[in-house]
């Protein structure tokens, strides 16, 4: 922003009071006055406050987000609409998006998480898609010690809220990830992703033509969630508890009725435009729709269905009551739309009309109470700031780990690692979610590295995974973001899916501080780099900044949700060993790195060192190789080697069917780095003898390092090291792995 002080008159006393009340910075206020050509009234100023919040306007992130690749052969709709859309063939497309609900979940975990799910579902249906899958990515603080009680309360509340909404509305929760890290103690992250299926010709947008009535469909408007978008764009503080009224209340039953009514209206071709009424409620949904259509809009607040009497225009405009949609009927179909809504027992009211003059005009009791140019609300100021890396992070990354002692009890280390909250079984979480309703889930949680949802009436399947490693991101934001995309894509490839595109939920600290801004810009820079190298564009996303308080800043956390395609869902791979006698092959090298590893955290309580380097060309090759082997029908068991290294990955492969394996790791080097070291681009698979030679030849032709490690069989996991032999029974491994989260979620 340029300085405009020379052009300004001094602020009135009234304006000074309003600035204090709304917290709008002086510079932004002056820009608002310039755009309006006058001083805004109180209601107008609040419209700007919510529309120019980071949540709605991306004012700190927009210049950075421009650098992300958004084009690809499968992309039908990139960022800017309610959700992104990719083509999956045979006339079908998939709409998807991830969104954060962090601050509400910190204050009121059940409703915060539930309405996060409800909100992302509405985004997907606004594209004309039937939601077919939900995923979520959760981050919590410590389960141990005195802080553990609050963490357990949050885990139980958040998981309960997701289950409450997703189960009742009848959309399966098919995947997700959960991570525990002390820097999320005061600021948990709850990101929800929804995936919908649509016919290409039914793709809908936020759009209206001139002179059309704009309908409000769904629940009535109440005083809940007032100013939620603005709340999301502030740091959490002691006073946050008093912002419980900023948290919306979800009603999955109304959500289900609104969903079915909206999809029916689209299928019957009754509507020309659809928009979700989410963050910043009426204000955002109506002004954005008008702006995208190049039009203005006149809203009559007297027509808005209300849950309670005496609501002021300000309350109506800022309410984030849930389960509301905006529909624009095609000419002549107004009556049909009203009848359809009545059958579902919903309000459908023409609350506004599109006008030629590009202004957002709000009337109440016959009076114009606010009138602002639509472009002024949509195009906020943007900021480009100076970032600087935190010196503590740099020092931790530079820490030399060569002198670390090598544990004598490697047998026990694996048991401890499997019992780490970050690696233990997720069954206690996903058993709370209905993961099969819709009868499309071909790979349920716990069975594969990614979920697979098949498309009825075709042979196709869609593979879904969301991922981000906070340790890598804390110690090296750029590399961590690259890992996040690489690993989510790897998980999709490992079940047999070809990654088509991704959605990103960027959770970072305060962008107004140099360290916060550095982490944000490095995170986006890393995503852009990995995105280009792997050929995977971004089609939708969300930023959640200000995840910071006086004594903490969350690790930059880019939750990357990748969507991939399987042309033949029968050709897919699971995690577990299924057939005794199959050979176990590793793509990549056995020796991993200790920097930023889960092993280092579990054994030494240390988060330090350089995260593993990532060769993106090799990563792309490894992913394409495993897809080839699965696609040829040779491989039915494959698994990404992630946190905890080879030993943990192998143990995880024994769990689903209780089948053990015997393997040799004869490489020189530290045994702990061999067993538990981490490195990207590594994939384990098992294959029968008949196809082993051809598979190895294929890996050779691609120039990929690989190793035949051993064979599947028995009920023990045996690992032969150069100077030791380690042996665990599958049952003993499983007991360590199953217990920890079951204590939190019985």
């Amino acid at each position, binding site marked *: 922003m340029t300085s405009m002080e020379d052009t300004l008159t001094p602020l009135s006393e009234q304006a000074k009071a309003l600035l204090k009340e709304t917290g709008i910075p002086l510079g932004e206020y002056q820009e608002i006055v310039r755009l309006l050509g006058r001083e805004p009234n109180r209601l107008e100023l609040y419209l700007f406050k919510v529309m120019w919040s980071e949540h709605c306007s991306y004012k700190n992130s927009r210049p950075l987000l421009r650098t992300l690749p958004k084009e690809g052969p499968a992309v039908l709709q990139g960022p800017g609409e309610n959700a992104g859309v990719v083509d999956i063939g045979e006339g079908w497309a998939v709409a998807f998006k991830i969104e954060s609900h962090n601050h509400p979940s910190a204050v009121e975990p059940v409703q915060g998480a539930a309405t996060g799910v409800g909100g992302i579902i509405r985004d997907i249906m606004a594209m004309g898609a039937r939601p077919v899958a939900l995923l979520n990515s959760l981050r919590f603080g410590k389960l141990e010690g005195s802080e553990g009680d609050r963490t357990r309360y949050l885990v139980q509340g958040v998981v309960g809220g997701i*289950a409450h909404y997703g189960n*009742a509305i009848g959309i399966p929760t098919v995947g997700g990830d959960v991570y525990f890290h002390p820097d999320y103690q005061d600021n948990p992250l709850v990101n929800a992703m929804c995936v919908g299926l649509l016919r290409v010709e039914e793709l809908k947008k936020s759009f209206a033509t001139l002179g059309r009535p704009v309908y409000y469909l769904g629940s009535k408007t109440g005083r809940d969630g007032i100013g939620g978008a603005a709340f999301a764009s502030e740091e959490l503080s002691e006073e946050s508890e008093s912002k419980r009224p900023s948290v919306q209340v979800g009603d999955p039953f109304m959500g289900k009725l609104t969903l079915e009514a909206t999809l029916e209206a689209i299928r019957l071709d009754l509507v020309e435009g659809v928009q979700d009424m989410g963050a910043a409620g009426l204000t955002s949904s109506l002004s954005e729709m008008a702006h995208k259509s190049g039009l203005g809009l006149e809203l009559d607040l007297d027509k808005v269905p209300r849950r309670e009497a005496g609501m002021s225009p300000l309350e109506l405009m800022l309410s984030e009551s849930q389960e509301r949609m905006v529909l624009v009927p095609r000419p002549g179909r107004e009556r049909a739309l009203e009848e359809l809504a009545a059958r579902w027992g919903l309000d459908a009211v023409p609350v506004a009309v599109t006008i030629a003059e590009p202004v957002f005009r709000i009337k109440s009791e016959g009076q114009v109470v606010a009138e602002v140019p639509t472009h002024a609300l949509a195009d906020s100021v943007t900021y480009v700031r100076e970032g600087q890396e935190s010196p503590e992070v740099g020092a931790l990354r530079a820490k030399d780990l060569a002198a670390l002692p090598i544990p004598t009890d490697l047998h026990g280390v694996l048991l401890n690692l499997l019992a780490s909250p970050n690696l233990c079984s997720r069954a206690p979480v996903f*058993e709370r979610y209905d993961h*099969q309703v819709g009868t499309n889930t071909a790979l349920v949680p716990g069975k594969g590295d990614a979920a697979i949802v098949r498309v009825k009436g075709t042979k196709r399947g869609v593979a879904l995974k969301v991922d981000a490693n906070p340790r890598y991101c804390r110690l090296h934001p750029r590399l961590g973001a690259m890992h996040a995309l690489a690993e989510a894509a790897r998980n999709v490839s490992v079940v047999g899916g070809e990654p088509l595109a991704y959605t990103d939920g960027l959770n970072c600290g305060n962008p107004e501080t140099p360290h916060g801004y550095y982490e944000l810009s490095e995170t986006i820079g890393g995503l852009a780099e990995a995105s280009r190298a792997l050929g995977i564009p971004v089609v939708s996303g969300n930023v959640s900044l200000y995840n910071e308080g006086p004594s903490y800043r969350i690790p930059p956390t880019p939750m990357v949700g990748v969507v991939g395609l399987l042309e033949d869902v029968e050709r897919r791979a699971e995690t577990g060993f299924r057939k005794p006698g199959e050979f176990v092959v590793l793509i990549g090298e056995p020796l991993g790195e200790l920097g930023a590893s889960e092993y280092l955290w579990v054994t030494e309580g240390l988060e330090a060192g350089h995260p593993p380097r990532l060769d993106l060309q090799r990563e792309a090759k490894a992913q394409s190789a495993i897809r080839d082997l699965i696609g040829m029908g040779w491989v039915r068991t494959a698994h990404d080697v992630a946190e905890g290294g080879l030993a943990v990955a192998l143990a995880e492969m024994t769990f689903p069917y209780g089948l053990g394996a015997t393997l040799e790791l004869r490489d020189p080097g530290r045994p702990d780095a061999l067993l538990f070291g981490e490195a990207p681009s590594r994939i384990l698979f098992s294959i029968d003898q008949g196809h082993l030679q051809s598979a190895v030849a294929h890996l050779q032709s691609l120039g990929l390092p690989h190793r035949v490690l051993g064979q599947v069989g028995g009920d023990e996991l045996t690992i032969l090291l150069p100077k030791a032999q380690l042996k665990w029974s599958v049952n003993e491994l499983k007991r360590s792995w199953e217990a920890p989260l079951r204590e939190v979620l019985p």
Partner: protein
Amino acid sequence: MKVAVVVFPGSNCDHDTRWALERAGLKAELVWHTEGSLEGYGAVFLPGGFSYGDYLRAGALAKFSPVMGEVRRLAQQGYPVMGICNGFQVLTEAGLLPGALLANTNLHYTCKEVFLRVERTDLAFTSDYRKGQVLRLPIAHGEGRYYADEETLARLENQGQVVFRYVPQPGAASEAPYNPNGSLLDIAGIVNERGNVLGMMPHPERAVEEVLGSVDGEGIFTSLSKALSAMA
């Protein structure tokens, strides 16, 4: 003969149930809960879901839906009527089956695979199974703990009205818990005295294709298909 799948507001396994019926070669139609007549239907399914949000008590409001009068009539006339999950809860609330479904003993919604034994194969829904056959089916409910007074339980047992019972996974360690919700007598599904109204908590419609991980639920729909062609 065609089969009606009743859609209450909040039903969410309606499409899945129709899909499973159609795969078994049956003609199935979704019927809105306000429908006053089920004339022409040879069987009725009450699908799973959260009818009316299940805010009061699972199935407690659905029993007042207009279509329930017709469901009752068909049940009394001996037509096959089946409730799955929320549908089972509606049938007990409506008094078409005895007992009640209480909150699971873990007090949480639970979605996972369970094993059940087929106790009766002389019904329209079970003729394609073998007696004693063990099925692998998913459950997905928060209130699935079958409860009835001792007299009712004894009657159910004596008259062979228990159709499905939770059992341990074949080959699993004997001490492993297998009853997922605390149901009395390990009851997973029961039938009325006449043998035409069946309710069960597990979801057979979710286990009708290899791609979904199990085909053990198919028998329900293929059995009904045979029964209906015999009726026609």
